[in-house]
């Protein structure tokens, strides 16, 4: 692994393991799952993800799906005194897999593989980190903002007030906008982002969110020559480079989000779809 990669990646044990669900709480539109990873690394890198599956009722059912595991960024990780780590995931119920995971209860088994992929890298020399999240995209920014000890400015956009509760996970200086204006200003994250860059363009932008938002952020940063790192999503089967199913178009051709990403430099991407 190259030196650059090393900073962005903590290696995963080469097998799936069983974590114990410690708590599942509802936070507005999201489910927050806390699980004890018994033997995994204590220090995953912000932007890395885990492949998750419920210990049972996964792999079919009258509803047939889910069958494959699902990818989730870790939102926080705390080393556990007895080894391993306590991991937090933030989920949005968009289908059978996220729905089933949201139904987990304390004590249930959570099958887990990871941490996987290449996380966020250091800020460009002489720039300050600027975190921009949309909806469930806040998840990987949470551990990043913690690592930056809340020093970084954070801009978050949400669909509604229920979703905006995701902002409660952050402390420090957080600007919130919503599509319906129910919380903070009405509008998109690109509004506050533009203002911020106007006042100080010596920034490295770290962004995660829906494709349209990422594309807007990428274009804005490109036009201003601001370094940005985008955490992408793609449908995945394996999460560790085995299936070649999760590709996105990059300047270097189609690349696998799970091993070449999920974090890509904005400059390395064509338009995000």
């Amino acid at each position, binding site marked *: 692994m190259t030196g650059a990669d090393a900073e962005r990646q903590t290696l995963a044990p080469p097998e799936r393991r069983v974590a114990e669900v410690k708590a599942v709480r509802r936070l507005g539109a999201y489910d927050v799952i806390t699980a004890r990873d018994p033997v995994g690394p204590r220090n995953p890198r912000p932007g890395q993800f885990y492949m998750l599956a419920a210990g049972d009722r996964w792999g079919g059912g009258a509803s047939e799906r*889910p069958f494959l595991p699902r990818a989730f960024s870790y939102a926080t990780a705390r080393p556990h005194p007895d080894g391993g780590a306590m991991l937090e995931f933030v989920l949005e119920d968009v289908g059978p897999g996220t729905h089933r995971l949201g139904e987990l209860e304390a004590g249930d088994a959570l099958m887990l593989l990871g941490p996987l992929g290449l996380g966020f890298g250091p800020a460009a020399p002489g720039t300050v980190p600027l975190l921009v999240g949309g909806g469930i995209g806040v998840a990987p920014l949470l551990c990043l903002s913690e690592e930056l000890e809340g020093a970084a400015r954070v801009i978050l956009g949400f669909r509604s007030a229920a979703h905006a509760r995701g902002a409660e996970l952050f402390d420090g200086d957080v600007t919130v906008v919503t599509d319906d204006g129910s919380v903070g200003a009405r509008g998109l994250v690109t509004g506050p982002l533009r203002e911020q860059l106007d006042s100080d363009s010596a920034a490295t932008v770290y962004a995660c969110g829906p494709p349209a938002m990422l594309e807007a952020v990428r274009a804005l940063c490109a036009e201003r020559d601001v370094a940005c790192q985008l955490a992408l999503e793609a449908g995945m089967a*394996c999460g560790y*480079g085995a299936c*070649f199913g999760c590709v996105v178009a990059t300047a270097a051709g189609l690349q696998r989000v799970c091993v070449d990403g999920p974090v890509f430099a904005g400059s390395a991407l064509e338009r995000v779809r």
Partner: protein
Amino acid sequence: MTGLALELCGVSLAGPVLNASGTFDAIAARRAFGAALVERFPFDAFVTKTVTLAPRQGNPPPRLWETAAGMLNSIGLPNKGLDGFLAHDLPQLADLRVPLVVSVMGFDHVELAALVEGIGARPEVAMIELNVSCPNVETGTIVGADPGETAAALDHVRPLTDKPLVVKLTPNAIEPAAVAAAAQDAGADGISLINTLKGMALHPRTGEPWLGGKTGGMSGPAVRAVALEQVARVAERVELPVIGMGGICSGCDAADFLAAGATAVAVGTESFRDPASGRRISEELAALAAGGRLKPLAARDTSL
């Protein structure tokens, strides 16, 4: 070491569990898992993703669709091409502590010959798997669906290497056993099957084909019964060792394929659920053998 060591086409393996081509990238896995991947490698031999003569990007995304107890893929054989494979991938794969099987596909005999010669010449390679699930550019028919075309392909490349040649059959044929027999007569050293079943899914909202490649290949538990039947039929028809695959998820599944006449098995989709699946399946198989529940299997009569 499972106590199930065997000779497969003259290559000695510590056990009968391989990975299915295109379902495990040892180089990428090593990036994700580090040295532990090599130390606890899940398979008794490593089969590469299919290599073509020219580099390929593969199909546009989306490439995956989840089905009931299985999945569709339209990956489209992305790979670095022969030169890229030999230059970049082969050296890294040589570090693995298990025999290396290289899967190749040529879109005509000339391509296939270049692939077999180029790869056959490398000492790191223990075996070559011919993926014949490709259309004949002239006739349009899938080579592996036709005994004659398959035999012709083998006739052409058999003289070019001493390495064992395993022919990977497509299940989308009327009579895979006839194709296997033709391959045997043309000098193949082994047969592997099944490749994916052709399938399709539509976008839940637009109703257009979901997959970038429009159609895809189905794999996983959903295809196991179909695979088992084809393996039994082929094993009954040919003398050659058969590598059985298709939805294998457990030692019991693997034992069924061995009972149906396979000499070895390959694990594909199940590895997506857990990269260590191959090792677990080997252990379950070893336990069945230790319990005497495997030997009799070998003697089972599954003739159709």
